[in-house]
């Protein structure tokens, strides 16, 4: 295939979406990135694998790019003693932290990167040991290691002071550290420090049989458990050449849309609360609870954890179940429309939402903002609409979009997406194709490779899986929060400190999904 002037020897992967893989030379690495950027593509994920095997094999760095014709997985094998690769951060700024993570976990250095501070290694393991190398034993630990200091960027000037927040926050949220440099109430700069929830998920995968990895994938970020389990199963099914039956694919989509609605409901409530409108929290959380209870009743788990399994799903919906689902969708739609009118008419709430935490379309494009936040900033991609696989192709997803990029726009997108997902769920359960929900996968004999790519409620998640017989050799999970965390630093600039929780919640990024 000719890719923007580069003749690439692409292999199409076995996947329900167009995904291409190519192994290439060092000289094409940066040029490909530039071509992708120029043609409007974006960097989805960047990761490394240790493919050394005795004297053969090598470290490989992989970049996954989203282009208009699909996903391009571009692999760069590093030769021999070469422990570095050209930095992509000059072309795709979101690559910076991913490169810092690769340095911590693989000991591979990005040449020319400005920021080389450790990212995940806060001091829990020695700086010269790299957990994702093959020779690192997963059970090894280093109790004698001490937390190391971290050099935050200092802002100097008259009247500037710092507010350190976290890692333990005031609410019921995940841990991370925020360093605000402020003048009076105004935020000049925010610097995030993440990695506190790093628990070695990717190393843990290496001790699991490939058939069992979906459970761990479903706990990369609990609020997106369905999206991750689906992405993992898609990757595994691609690696072994298996396929989930049609009915299972429809049921997976139903679960994904239910997950989207559950999270949007919770966040819309929390957004009201953060703007001192506790009524919103009370009512949206009530709807969310009803929603989760029906999950429990129908699927046996409130978040449908472990219900998407390799080869299909571990649930089914019968006629009475479908009727309950439709009935609940109708009821939730009525209530959401009422609550939306209340939000829209509430002057105090709108005063807090409008113009707050703005990310302009130009900035969104430059920094690669993704998911619902991207769609609220006029940088709207949504895999369900752009590269629809079954059943989304039949369902014709209407993509929500707004261009103001403020908290109000993200609220708008969430309301729109709830209504659209309610429509999708109703259509799915009324048009469920008949048949099996599970088709056992062929057994794994040779080495396999597969990619899963799914539009979670937050944005696109990606799972890249390398198998070795029945076992996992490498499993990389990517959360859209990688792209959006750095943009949050820009979104709060010039806002007042008390608006930070509101802005933060309007994105609601994952710590665990990022920290792994």
């Amino acid at each position, binding site marked *: 295939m000719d890719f923007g002037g580069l003749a690439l020897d692409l292999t199409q992967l076995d996947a329900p979406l167009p995904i291409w893989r190519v192994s290439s030379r060092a000289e094409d690495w940066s040029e490909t990135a530039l071509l992708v950027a120029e043609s409007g593509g974006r960097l989805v994920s960047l990761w490394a694998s240790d493919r050394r095997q005795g004297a053969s094999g090598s470290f490989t760095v992989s970049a996954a790019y989203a282009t208009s014709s699909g996903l391009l997985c571009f692999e760069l094998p590093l030769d021999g003693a070469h422990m570095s690769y050209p930095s992509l951060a000059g072309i795709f700024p979101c690559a910076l932290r991913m490169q810092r993570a690769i340095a911590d976990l693989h000991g591979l250095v990005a040449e020319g990167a400005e920021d080389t501070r450790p990212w*995940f290694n*806060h001091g*829990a*393991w020695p700086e010269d040991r790299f*957990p994702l190398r093959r020779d*690192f034993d*997963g*059970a*090894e*630990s*280093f109790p004698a290691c001490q*937390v190391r200091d971290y050099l935050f960027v200092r802002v100097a000037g008259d009247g500037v002071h710092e507010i350190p927040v976290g*890692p*333990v926050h*005031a*609410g*019921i*949220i*995940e*841990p991370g550290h925020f360093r605000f440099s402020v003048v009076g109430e105004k935020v000049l700069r925010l610097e995030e420090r993440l*990695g*506190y*929830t*790093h*628990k*070695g*998920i990717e*190393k*843990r995968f290496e*001790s699991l049989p490939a058939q069992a990895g979906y*459970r*761990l994938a479903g*706990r*990369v*970020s*609990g*609020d997106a458990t369905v999206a991750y389990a689906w992405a993992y199963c898609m990757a595994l099914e691609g690696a072994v050449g298996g396929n989930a039956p049609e009915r299972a694919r429809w049921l997976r989509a139903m679960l994904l849309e239910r997950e989207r609605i559950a999270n949007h409901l*919770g966040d819309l409530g929390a957004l009201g609360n953060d703007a001192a409108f506790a*009524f919103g929290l*009370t*009512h949206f*959380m*009530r709807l*969310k*609870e009803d929603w989760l209870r029906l999950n*429990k009743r129908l699927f046996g788990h*409130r*978040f449908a*954890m472990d219900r998407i399994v390799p080869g299909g799903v571990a649930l089914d919906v019968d006629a009475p179940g479908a009727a309950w689902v439709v009935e609940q969708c109708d009821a939730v739609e009525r209530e959401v429309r*009422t*609550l939306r*009118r*209340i939000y829209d*008419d*509430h002057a105090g709430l709108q005063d807090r939402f409008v113009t707050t935490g703005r990310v302009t379309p130009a900035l969104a494009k430059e920094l690669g903002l993704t998911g619902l936040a991207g769609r609220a900033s006029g940088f709207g991609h949504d895999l369900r609409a752009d590269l629809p696989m079954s059943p989304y192709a039949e369902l014709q997803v209407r993509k929500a979009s707004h261009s103001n990029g403020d908290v109000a726009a993200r609220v708008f997108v969430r309301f729109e997406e709830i209504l659209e997902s309610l429509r999708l769920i109703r259509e799915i359960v009324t048009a469920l194709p008949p048949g099996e929900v599970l088709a056992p996968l062929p057994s794994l004999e040779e080495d396999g490779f597969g990619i899963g790519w799914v539009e979670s409620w937050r944005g696109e998640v990606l799972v890249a899986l390398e198998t070795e017989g029945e076992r996992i050799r490498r499993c990389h999970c990517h959360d859209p929060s990688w792209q959006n965390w750095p943009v949050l630093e820009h979104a709060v600039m010039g806002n007042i400190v008390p608006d930070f929780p509101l802005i933060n919640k309007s994105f609601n990024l*994952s*710590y*665990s*999904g990022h*920290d792994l």
Partner: protein
Amino acid sequence: MWKTLIQIVKVGLPAEAPPVLPAADAGEARRIEAEVLAVLGRALTIREVDAGSCNGCELEVHAVNNVYYNLEGYGIKFVASPRHADMLLVTGPGARNMAVALKRTYDATPAPKLVLAVGDCTRDGGIFGETYASAGGVGGIVPVDRFVSGCPPEPIEILRGILAAVKAGQQRRDV
């Protein structure tokens, strides 16, 4: 404003609705309330600390704060600072990067402090195990009064766990 009021009136008091607890447990809510008061004689304040969870447990800790479970009605309240807390509610496998923060939060909590560890991974690391990055449970970082099983435990289990920890703490002090 009137729309807000109409909605409030229309929805009424969901905390009284029957699906709050399974039929067999009817009356348990009242019992929890009575016991919290009997044991503590006042409200119970809780500070939550995520020690590396997947955030699934946080979803349920949020849920236990929704109107159905009527938490504040029992005199149980989540607070923003460990210095205001009687109990730490800890989740996650004990990410090593969180060990110092968790320990310091514990130290900042006034005695007598209770620790409730919520979720399978707080016990032994659960699905994350014990690795270079996970301590394999939070018990090695802070003393735990009570564990709540589940991945994630449902809100009603968290509520039961809170009560059990209060009782366990009471017995610990009595001896």
